[in-house]
């Protein structure tokens, strides 16, 4: 192979000077470590003193007509090369990930041609395994979130780099839902970034490394199909993208301030209105299911006050508006809705949190109780605040 190339080069150098003023710069480009050929790739030749450049093709489709070999006529530079010129050569980047490993320097001589030092291309890193999971591995490919706080989800895998595991420089990992994309900005609803993933080069063989990227997923992240995508870069700037899919499940969660303290009550009076804030700590829209009891479920009471009870009908709520003024029993019954012993679902349509800055997934509920005549001591009741997906 090399002999054919040299004969060709000699013949060209002997014959072409008779017809033209070509000065060929030729060189050999080694295969990548995974045996990928550099044929059809482009070599860039430039004169650093004036930044002029020209390009040539490696392999049979180029002037050398020989695998792994390129030939470039440096006389075709805007300012043709002259004896003594110092020229640089490298392989140009393309989308393959097989980046140039070196830039070689050569000096133009008085001979008919010059042979440049060998060029080499880098093998990009490859993933052989990638998974994304939360703390529960069963059922696989499902992530269950935690109300009001974050849940760690870890993308992990094995990466191989023929240049050696230590040549892996960085891993940029993104975790995003189908409504987002790799390049989107971070949003706790649908896009997370981790640029400080762990790279364990002591794992496996000398060309393998174990990688692990953990994302702290907020409770209001979209219930959807999500993708964990890695962009790995090695020290020759080769980068590889790979991804794995999982799904984030719907999370039904509710927060409500407890207790509802009506203060000191007076017989035959309606209590002051007390506000209880309800917060959606999940990632789906919720409705409220409410019921109450004094001591035991379905006892038709709302509060137990020593030996006496307050009927379930005297505990009332309003899920829409506040009425803070003093009310008579008649007004109270007209404005507020009865709490019931059996659960009653009410349309509340409280959406999940959308804003990363402030919690916009809250709504107030308003409560009052009427105290019958013979109640005098302190009272305690139970209100079941239920959430269902709306």
């Amino acid at each position, binding site marked *: 192979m090399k002999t054919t190339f040299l004969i060709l080069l000699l013949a060209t150098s002997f014959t072409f000077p008779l017809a033209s003023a070509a000065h060929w710069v030729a060189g050999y480009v080694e295969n990548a470590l995974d*045996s990928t050929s550099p044929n059809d790739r482009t070599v860039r030749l430039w004169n650093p003193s004036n930044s002029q450049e020209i390009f040539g093709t490696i392999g049979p489709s180029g002037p050398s007509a020989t695998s792994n070999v390129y030939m470039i006529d440096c006389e075709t530079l805007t300012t043709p090369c002259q004896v003594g010129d110092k020229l640089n050569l490298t392989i140009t980047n393309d989308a393959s990930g097989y980046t140039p490993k070196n830039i070689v320097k050569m000096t133009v001589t008085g001979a008919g041609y010059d042979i440049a030092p060998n060029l080499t291309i880098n093998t990009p890193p490859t993933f052989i395994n990638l998974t994304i999971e939360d703390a529960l591995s069963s059922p696989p490919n499902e992530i269950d979130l*935690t109300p009001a706080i974050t849940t760690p989800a870890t993308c992990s895998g094995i990466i191989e780099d023929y240049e050696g595991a230590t040549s892996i420089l960085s891993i940029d990992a993104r975790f995003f839902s189908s409504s987002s994309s790799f390049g989107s900005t971070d949003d706790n609803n649908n896009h997370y970034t981790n640029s400080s993933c762990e790279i364990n080069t002591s794992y496996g063989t000398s060309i393998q490394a174990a990688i692990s990227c953990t994302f702290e997923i907020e409770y209001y992240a979209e219930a959807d199909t999500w993708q964990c995508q890695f962009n790995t870069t090695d020290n020759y700037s080769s980068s590889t993208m790979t991804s794995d899919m999982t799904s984030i499940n719907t999370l039904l969660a509710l927060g409500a301030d407890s*207790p*509802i303290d009506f203060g000191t009550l007076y017989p035959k009076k309606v209590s002051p209105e007390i506000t209880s804030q309800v917060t959606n700590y999940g990632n*789906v829209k919720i409705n409220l299911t409410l019921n*109450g009891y004094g001591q035991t479920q379905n006892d038709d009471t709302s509060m137990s006050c020593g030996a006496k009870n307050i009927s379930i009908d005297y505990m009332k709520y309003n899920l829409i508006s506040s009425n803070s003024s003093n009310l008579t029993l008649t007004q109270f019954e007209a404005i507020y809705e009865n709490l019931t012993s059996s659960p009653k679902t009410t349309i509340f349509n409280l959406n999940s949190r959308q804003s990363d800055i402030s919690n916009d997934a809250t709504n107030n509920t308003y409560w009052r109780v009427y105290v019958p005549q013979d109640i005098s001591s302190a009272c305690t009741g139970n209100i079941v605040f239920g*959430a269902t997906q709306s």
Partner: protein
Amino acid sequence: MRGRVTLSILATLIILTQLTSAVNIGVSPANVEFKDVLRSGYAERPITITIDSEIETQIEIETYGNTSEWINFTSETLKVSKGKPLQIMVSVSPPYDVPNGNYTGFLRIKSSKLGASQEGHATGLIIPMLAVEIKTQVTDQEILECQASNFKISNAEEGDDVIITLDIENQGNIRISPKTTLDIWDQSSTTLIAQKEFYPTQIIPTQKDQFVFKLSSSDLELGQYWVDISVPDCYSSDTLTFDILEEGALYAAGVLQKIIIEPWSDINEIVSIAANFKNTGEKPLDAKFMGKITYQNKIIQLIESDESLFIPTGEQDNFQFYFTPQKAGKYIISGRVFYDNKRTYEQSAILNIRPGNAFASTLKTISYIFLIIIIGILLYKIRKERRSYFNLKSRK
């Protein structure tokens, strides 16, 4: 005075904070849907209960709604805390006399009461509750559907059993016990040594179980064997290999990871072929690659490494070959690596050769001939000039 007021405000705030409790429970997924469940049938799915509090909180679960009597779960009272999510299995078993249709029930998950009542006040204690909707579609159509995966086989020392494991998931709505067949072949995969059949225990709908079968090695000699394992009912199969080893022998294993080749090339262009082999066993290996290149279903070239490659434990290396295609079309390069009296799974790669440009090819040949003639003429002229120069010099 100011200090006393500040202290009083601080104390009030502390008391209020203690009284206002906010433990948040969650359940995931928010609803469950069971499709195509038979009357008197069964379907299950895990749900996860989470909480944001470090304090262990008691959870109560109850069913509610039209189908509450069909819904079952693994435990009624459970404890959950932050970082320790609780997974419970929810299942439905529709009664034998229910008509086909869609039914809805709820699983109510309640945590304990939050906060405490205050002396002399009327207090409503809040009990957070989550109602998970359970939808069930009842049908009378039997569905047999399953998936077998994760087939594994172990090596065994002489006299020990060979262990075969596989996962089977029942994706239909009837109980299954799918037949699992094993065809055991010799090292060259040409002679059938034995055939075995196994039946796993019954798998109920929607469940996934791992099954372990034992194969006696008493009739098997030392060496490598191939097994075609198949679960016909699940349309799943795989080919595995195992060794019968001498007692205490180090295990030799390797994987032909891939045959690396540029997928497109041209006629008469030399193509590089690399076969990447990895030593995955317990001892270093001397490995050889043997393969073939086929074109239009005919073997046109055998490829074999001249010398064995030495590959240390855990390392990998490439067998390198070159091939010059003469015709346009699709070539298939396939082969195996042989090591320690064993062979790997076969791997293959496709090489596509573009149709050549006849004119360019002829022009190229003519250019070569022309250049060689010029070189010949030049050499002849140089020699002639030299000879006449030396003749002239000798005359002088």
